[in-house]
Structure formats: structure tokens, C-alpha cells
């Protein structure tokens, strides 16, 4: 449930002695200034797609050498999942790096010549901004005031930093009626008791805070706003937390979706979000394909995703690849399942991607990634985990209550000093990925005079590239524009077979073809016919028939 009341947040500084996990990251003002600075370069322009409820700009950067229109484009989106502020940083830093390198001859200049790169670095600026606040907590929603527990009161039970350490973590309450136990491998980690293993719950596990409204629920309604990454219409969780009043209820969602639909030249999408599919590419699941609405990556697209993934792994080389969360109303899934483009989703960094010594073996593999992470924290002597410490809790006067847990934001966002290096890896990936493309050529083109001013013109369009002219999902959604084949004829020509413009079928990669024949009558002597194959997201091809004689090689 949502209302239109807004609480545009002001930032509170963190307590002394603790640094905010986003230290060195750009808050909105710094971010906006950087986009404006970047737009001073001739390779970049900055425009506003729309304003958030708090009047923050949803900035679009257009990077292109020469005219940005009429060539294929790649859309890069950051700030998708608001606590993942790093995603916004990667996107903007990539743009900066591209512009800088594009000034001189080289592969990046070629990239910016062949493609337009659209970058929306911070798609939900209000939500991103909330994550700079203290106490530190992961804020997914924008500034819309919401009734997260649907009790018709808005934001009546938020979290509190009870131990005043500047972080909202967790509370474990010693209670035999609780469902939780400590992990047999590491007693810092809480897991649910498994009765089948003979385990009996000993703790309740809650987020840090008090029961402000006395309803025996803790921190169930912080009025947390609507998440950009839960507001898209694919697998939308109606009435769910942070999902909004309905799909695309938020201005951020609408301007990004509309931008995509308005730009048919977008060939594929790269977004920064924890629902990574570049390290673990989406798998086809035939069971999920039985519904009229596709819920699983199409089998014909699997090879494409795997090819992008192997290019990505060459750059990232992660030590461990943690599982990615599933999306509900997420941007990245929408971009594939509804927008009909290859949608590449990158988390960019996870602490477990980094190599660390002595990764131990665990017998009990429940929550294995958290166990590995705790081991890494120990090795690195990091402060990313706050050890459980007893406090007096007003709601549990006779019970032992401890506060502790993983610090929020830290595992999503690397130290700021590393952002450039991670962005560079993604630029390198982008360069390689952009080489994967459909390539349309005319072959076997012939013109035959049948006499009486009648000509037969034949040609075959072939895709010699390594991507289909439209991915399989796009074929289903019918959002990408199909290849058009146009023939220009002399004035007054008459079509006996074929038409001036033909929509072709989708051309498969590695040799998919479309054969076309026209029979045309014209009074022109020695007529010339010009063929043009084009689609907004595919580099077009042109040919004239009869073909002009090859140019003689230049005299040395």
C-alpha cells in the first residue's frame, strides 16, 4: 500500500570511529555534477529522462562518436537495486572511461563509432540516496511513503540502532519457542533448526529495533518506499513488499521502460544488479515454459547467454561464484522477458570473487557462502561482521538479547578505491561483448534481364555474425523491429513479383539467410536497383545492382 506523502531524506552523519560503507562514493549532488562534467565532452551528452518524487534527475548519458541515431545501441543501467550503489558507480565510471579512451584511435573509439552507448547510471536516485544515511541500513525503496505491513498505518515500526554502533544488524533472542539455532560450523551464523536433523530451535531472529507499535512484530513497517527492482511487470509480486501499488507505478520505472521502448536501436542491455546472470547464466527450464507467458530463458538463447558469460568470466575470474537472488518485478528479467533483448546482469563485485587464503572445507554446507564469507572476514581481519553482544531490550525484559551480524551494504559495495578497477574490467567486457553481433551481408545477388524491360532480381541476405538478428525471446515478444529489405527502382517501375519493401524473417546466427526475388518491369535503359537491408538494432547493408565494377587498386 502506498501513499503520496514524501519524506525526502536528509543525511545524518555516522558516529565517530566508524566509517560509512559508502565512504568515497558519490552522493546525488556529487554524482549529478560528474554527469554534467562528462557531458562537456563532445562524445557525451546528458539528458534528463524524468524527475523523481524528490526532484532528482534520472540522467541519461548518450555516448557516441558522431550522430547517435541510426546505429545499434547498448543500454547500460545502474542503480537498479538501490543498496547496490556500486552499480551506479560502475556505470558512471564506465562512461567516463569510455569517453576518455574514445578520444584517441583504438578499439573504444571504434566501439563508440559503431554503437551508441546509452547509460542510465542511477535509475532510482531517491532510493540510492537513502543508503548514504546513518544508521547504516539497506534501503531498497524510493521516497514514497508506504504501508509495508498493510495495516493502514504508514511507517509506524521502523528499525532502531539499539547498540548505537551506527549499523542496523540483527537481534537474536534466546527463546525455546524460536525457530533458529547457531550454525554447527560457526556459531556466529544463525540458521533455521531442521527437525529432520534432530535440531530444536533456541533463538528468535529479528532485525535490530523495538516493537514501536506493540503488535508483537518487530520493524515490520519502516515505510520503506517502492523498489525500482520490484516494480517492473515481469513476475510482479502484487501487494508484495516494496512492489508499489502496481507494476510501473513509479516514475523511475516508467521513464526507464519508456526510454527502452522508444529506442528500438537498443541491441542488448547490461545492468548492474545482484541478480547476476553473467557468472551464472540463466538456464532453460522446460517446465516454466508451459505457461503462455514465458518464465524461463528460451533454449535458442542459451548459447548466446553462455557466450556472453564466458567473455565476462575472462575479465572477472571470480574465486567463488555465489548464487544470485531471484527477481520479482526486476529490471534485468524484464529487459529480456518483456523488452525482448539479451539482458546481461552483473553484480560487478562480491567479496567472495576476491581470492583469499585458506578457504576451509565445511562439512555442514548450509549457508555455505556465509560460512566462506566469515572465514574470509577472519583471514582479512575485516570488521564486516559485528560480533553478537548482549543488550538490554525493553520488549524482552527477562530474556537474553544479542545484537550482531553482517554489516549492511559492505558485501554489495567494494571499498571506493576499487571502483575504477572494477569498472575497467566491465569496459573490457563491453568491448568484447559488443563484437558479438549479427552481421548482415548480401550474397548471390543477381540481376537478369528477361527481355521487354523485365528484370529478375535475386539476392540472399545472410547473417554471418554470431548473434541472431533478433533473440528468440524478442521473436516471441515482438518488441524488436524485424529486418526490412527495401528495393529502390527507377521511376515508374512496376512490380510483377515482390514489393518495394519486405519484412524478413529472423536471421539465425552463423549463416541464417533470407532469399528474395523480385520481377520488375521498367522502361529505363540500363536500370539500377538499390537494395537496403536495415533494422534499428542491426548494422544495415546496402548494395546496388548491377554491382559497379570493383575499383582498380590505387597505383602505388
Amino acid at each position, binding site marked *: 500500500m502506498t501513499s503520496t506523502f514524501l519524506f525526502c531524506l536528509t543525511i545524518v552523519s555516522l558516529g565517530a570511529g566508524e566509517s560509512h560503507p559508502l565512504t568515497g562514493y558519490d552522493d546525488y549532488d556529487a554524482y549529478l555534477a560528474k554527469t554534467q562534467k562528462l557531458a562537456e565532452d563532445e562524445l557525451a551528452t546528458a539528458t534528463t529522462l524524468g524527475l523523481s518524487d524528490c526532484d532528482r534527475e534520472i540522467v541519461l548519458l548518450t555516448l557516441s562518436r558522431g550522430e547517435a541515431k541510426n546505429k545499434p545501441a547498448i543500454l547500460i543501467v545502474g542503480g537498479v537495486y538501490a543498496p547496490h550503489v556500486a552499480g551506479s558507480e560502475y556505470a558512471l565510471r564506465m562512461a567516463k572511461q569510455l569517453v576518455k579512451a574514445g578520444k584517441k584511435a583504438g578499439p573504444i573509439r571504434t566501439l563508440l563509432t559503431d554503437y551508441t552507448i546509452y547509460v542510465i547510471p542511477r535509475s532510482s536516485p531517491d532510493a540510492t540516496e537513502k543508503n548514504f544515511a546513518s544508521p547504516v541500513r539497506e534501503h531498497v525503496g524510493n521516497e514514497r511513503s508506504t504501508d509495508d505491513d498493510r495495516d493502514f498505518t504508514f511507517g509506524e515500526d521502523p528499525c532502531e540502532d539499539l547498540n548505537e554502533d551506527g549499523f542496523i544488524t540483527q537481534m537474536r533472542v534466546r527463546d525455546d519457542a524460536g525457530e533458529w539455532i547457531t550454525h554447527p560450523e560457526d556459531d556466529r551464523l544463525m540458521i533455521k533448526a531442521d527437525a529432520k536433523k534432530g535440531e530444536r530451535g533456541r533463538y528468535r531472529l529479528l532485525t535490530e529495533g523495538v516493537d514501536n507499535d506493540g503488535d508483537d512484530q518487530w520493524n515490520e513497517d519502516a515505510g520503506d518506499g517502492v523498489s525500482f527492482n520490484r516494480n517492473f511487470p515481469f513476475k510482479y509480486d502484487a501487494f508484495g513488499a516494496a512492489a508499489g501499488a502496481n*507494476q510501473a507505478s513509479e516514475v523511475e520505472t516508467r521513464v526507464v521502460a519508456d526510454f527502452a521502448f522508444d529506442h528500438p536501436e537498443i541491441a542488448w542491455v547490461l545492468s548492474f544488479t545482484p541478480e547476476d546472470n553473467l557468472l551464472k547464466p540463466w538456464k532453460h527450464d522446460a517446465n516454466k515454459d508451459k505457461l503462455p*507467458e514465458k518464465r524461463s530463458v528460451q533454449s535458442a538463447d542459451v548459447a548466446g547467454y553462455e557466450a556472453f558469460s564466458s567473455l565476462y568470466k575472462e575479465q572477472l575470474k571470480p574465486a567463488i561464484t555465489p548464487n544470485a537472488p531471484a527477481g520479482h518485478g526486476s529490471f534485468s528479467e524484464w529487459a529480456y522477458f518483456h523488452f525482448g533483448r539479451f539482458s546481461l546482469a552483473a553484480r560487478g563485485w562480491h567479496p567472495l570473487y576476491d581470492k583469499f587464503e585458506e578457504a576451509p572445507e565445511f562439512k555442514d554446507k548450509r549457508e555455505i557462502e556465509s560460512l566462506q564469507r566469515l572465514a574470509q572476514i577472519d583471514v582479512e581481519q575485516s570488521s564486516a561482521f559485528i560480533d553478537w553482544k548482549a543488550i538490554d531490550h525493553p520488549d524482552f525484559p527477562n530474556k537474553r538479547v544479542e545484537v550482531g551480524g553482517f554489516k549492511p551494504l559492505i558485501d554489495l559495495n567494494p571499498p571506493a578505491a576499487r571502483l575504477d578497477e572494477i569498472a575497467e574490467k566491465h569496459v573490457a567486457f563491453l568491448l568484447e561483448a559488443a563484437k558479438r553481433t549479427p552481421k548482415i551481408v548480401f550474397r548471390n545477388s543477381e540481376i537478369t534481364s528477361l527481355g521487354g524491360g523485365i528484370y529478375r532480381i535475386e539476392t540472399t541476405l545472410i547473417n554471418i555474425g554470431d548473434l541472431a538478428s533478433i533473440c528468440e525471446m524478442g521473436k516471441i515478444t515482438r518488441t524488436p523491429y524485424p529486418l526490412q529489405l527495401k528495393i529502390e527502382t527507377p521511376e515508374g517501375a512496376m512490380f510483377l513479383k515482390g514489393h518495394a519493401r519486405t519484412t524478413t524473417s529472423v536471421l539465425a546466427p552463423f549463416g541464417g539467410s533470407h532469399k528474395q526475388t523480385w520481377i520488375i518491369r521498367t522502361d529505363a535503359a540500363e536500370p539500377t536497383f538499390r537494395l537496403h537491408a536495415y533494422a534499428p538494432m542491426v548494422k544495415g547493408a546496402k548494395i546496388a545492382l548491377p554491382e559497379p565494377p570493383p575499383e582498380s587498386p590505387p597505383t602505388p
Partner: protein
Amino acid sequence: MLATSVSAAEPSYESMGAPAEPKVAAQWNRFHDYKQSTDLLHALAKAHPEFCRLRTLGSTYGKRQMWLMTISDFSTGDVDEKPAFWIDGAIHANEIQAVEVVLYTAWFLLEGREHHQSLKTLLKDRTFYLVPMMSPDSRDAHFYKANTTHSPRTGQRPFDDDRDGLLDEDGPDDLNRDGHITQMRIRDRNGGWKSHPKFPQLMVRVEKGEQGQFRLLGQEGVDNDGDGKVNEDGDGYYDPNRDWAWFWRPSYVQRGAHRYPFSIPENRLVADFVKTRPNIAGGQSYHNAGGMILYGPGRKEDTFARSDKAVYDALGKTGEQILPGYRYMNIAHDLYPVSGGETDWFHQMRGVFMFTNELFTPFNYFREHDNGGILGSDDNKARFDKYLLFGDGFVPWKKVDHPQYGEVEVGGMKKSWGRQPPSFLLEEECHRNMAFTLYHAEQMPKVAIQSVDVKPLGKDLFEVTAIVENERITPTHSAADVKHRITPPDLVEIKGAKLKRVVLGMTADEPFFLRPAEQPKTPAIIKLKTIAGNNHVYVRWLVEGAGPFEVSVKSIKGGAATAKTK
């Protein structure tokens, strides 16, 4: 000597039905374009300032206004807090008489309220929100551009149906310039069609082995863009009634879905308004055609709770009596599946009981079902045209030069009937459909306090028991509303000047409180998730202090009531 004129001021004999001396004269055997509808709404607002307000929800793509008329007795309470009934028309603009039904409803409520005590009470207790034209741009397109009875169903925003980079570049063309898009035929003995033996304007298929006379070439039009296809990219196409947020599916699953729910701005204006009015308890949208009283869900995979279905059944069955020839039907199971339909959003996301009526039934041609589908059989239409329309219903076939086909003939049914009633059936359609909605509006929840009993328990402790009832068919909260917690609960409150403390508050569904539900928090204000239709809830408090006590009930969709003890 016979009187040659009848004074309008003093009707000698008043017929039942419409008021004889309205402040705003209106004619209900004709259709109103956007401007005429707008003028009528303004005239009503001006003539009845204490009972209606006209505002716009915003502008359309074509800079027309999305008129919203609020009708209620403005002298009795805040109209936005009374239980409200929603009515809209012609989200599919070609379904034009839908607008007349809503306009007639506004006119009849305002002009008839002094004559009919029941309307007076209705306007005292209820509010009506009316949006007569959900797609005003396309209404004028239907009136003033060449179309068929089926077009335009979409809006006027350009859309690249064939994704060739060109917008609406190849729609139908009015080759004979008569304002109607009809059919094309060409003389061809191999064409498989011939003239109907009795009604020569009608085309019928030849029997196997029989020689034909004509080949049919589809709708009037040419290949405007040289791609070899005729009329492949006309107005739209997006369907405003596949744009609503419940069970929305993209266009490859649900044809007509646009980009995302409410990506059609006219709908978003309406939805944004409705979201701010939790008092809306009942609703009606008007479409055509076929004579149906439709209820959701629109998808077989979706369900409405049994208790909600029972409410639709009770209302719909009465509707079938009010609307002869109309059938009460489910959208998904009895018509066809619809994702993202308007009424499903109202029911599932706003907790509103809402019907869609498909106006005009071919039953009305000869007051019999002719098994010719929603538009009636061709034979019946031709007979009706001959005997009742005197041959005005068809454009006679006439030769036209066609750039691709050569000499063709153009002719066929005019756009102004088929889905729409002729003048002499229109007023009846308006009145009967309005009557059904007023019945539904009457049956929206109405809370009352049946009794309050006080039993002294000794010292200064009292047991106060109230029976709170809902006097109508519709519950105060539909099952969908309760499930998703869409609108706040009904509140039953006990007060009293000498009331010291409410010790305990509880509810039960039987008078003996055998299985009471206790409400430990704020026991003085008992929250009820719903009060079922024609049903009641027992509320009991144990209080310290002394009477008299005042018990009140307040329901967002069911109104309010108060009772005092001695």
C-alpha cells in the same frame, strides 16, 4: 377543435420513466459526439449545482478532457466519504452508446431526483462518480473519420503495429468517401461469393461446385506503403481494456496490451483517481455488444472467492430481469479470456464489485435469440434493415477504381449500427442499463446498529453488546479486499461521558459468544475485517464506569451509524 400544440410547461399527461420537464432538455434517441457530451455535462452541472460537480481528470493525447462528474446530495456529508458507485463508458470508443448510457444516468439522477423519493434517498446516502467518455479522442474519430462499427477500439496515439519504423502508415481508406469503411468486392466467377438471393446487398458463400460472382477483398483500403499488404498498420493498436494492472500480460500473451499497466495515460488518470477513493464499493463499465452482464475474473487461472461470486450472482440474476435478452456471464469461462481488464483491477486490486455490460443485443431485432453470435445473424440484420431501417443500414455496392486491384465495388454495413441500437431502441437501452446500476448502487453495503444492550455486572462494571448489521447484498469488504488488506477495516466504537475504561472488547458471529475473538489492542474501537452482505456481527465490551453509552460504526464502503443507550 383539436389542440395543435402541447405546452411544454404543463404536460397534460405524464408518462412513466423520464421526467417530463427537465431543467436540461436532452434527446435520448441520438448519439452525442465529444463536444455535445461535454456541453450536456456542463449544462447539468450548471443546472444542478447542489447535486453535481464536473471536473476533468486531465487531458487526453488529443487534448480532450477526461470528464468526471460527481453526483450526490452535497448538502448531506462529505461526498467522498459516502459509499460510492463508479460508472464509466466506452473505453472502446467505437462502442459508442456506452457514453449515452452514462450521460442518461447522470441526466436521470439529476432531473428525476425530485420526482422519485428513492433517488433522493440514494443521493443522500451514496455518491456516483461518472466518467462517460473513457476514450474521447477515438470517439470523435469514430464520429468524424471513416470507420466501421468496430473501429476505433484503440486510442489515437500513433503506434507502429508492424514495427517497420513507420507509424499508422497503412490503415483503411475511405475509397467512396462516405465516412464508412465498408467492404471491397471484385467481379470474379472463381471468387467463391455471390449475392444473397433475398437480400442482394449481402454476400454469401457459394455452394461447392456452384459458380460464384464475386471475390471479397477485405476492408476498403489500398496498400499505402508499398509492402504488398493492405491495411496492416492502422490506428493503434493498443487496447485500453488490456492495460489494467491485475493479471496484466504483455502483448504476445494478451493482444492489445501496451507497454506496461497504465501505459495508456488516459487510463492512468482514471486509476490514479480511483486509488484515492476507497469509498468506491460498486462499479459498472459499459461496452458493446451482445447483451451481456459480465463479471470477472477475466482469466481461467484467476479466481474470485466464492463469497464474492455469490454477490455477483445475486446482482446479476436481477440484472437479467431488468435487461431482457441480456445474459449474466463470466468473462473467462463464458466469453473469452482477458488479461489486464478494467473490472478485474477494480475487483482484485481495489476491492470493488464491478460489472461490464455489453450493450445492445441482437435479441432486440425481433425479440428472439437468433444464434447469430454477439452481432446477430446476417439474415436477421438484413431483414431488420429491410423492414425497420427501410434499407438505410447498408451502403449500396458501387464501383471504385483501386490502385492495386483495378475496378472494384465498395459497399456494406454502415458503421452506425450492428453494435449500436437504432434511435428507437437507444432510449430503452439507456434506461434499463441505468436501472440495473441503480439497483447495484442501492445494494452497496449499508451499515446499521440493530441494537445495543447493557447488562450491569456489579460494582461499576457493565457488559455492552451491540449487533452491527449490513442491510444490503454487498459486504463492507469483498473477500479480495480482506485478503490483500486493500481498504481499512470497519470500526465499531464505544464512548460515553462516564465511561472510565474499556476492559475487554470482542466479537462473535452468534449471540452467545461461544467462540469470541478478542481484540487486546484498543478494545474501545473494534476493527471488523468485513460485515457480510445481509448479515450482522455481535460486538461486546466489558466497561468500567457508567452509561449512557454511544456505539458507532464507521465503514469506508458502508457508511456510518450511531446508537445511544439510555
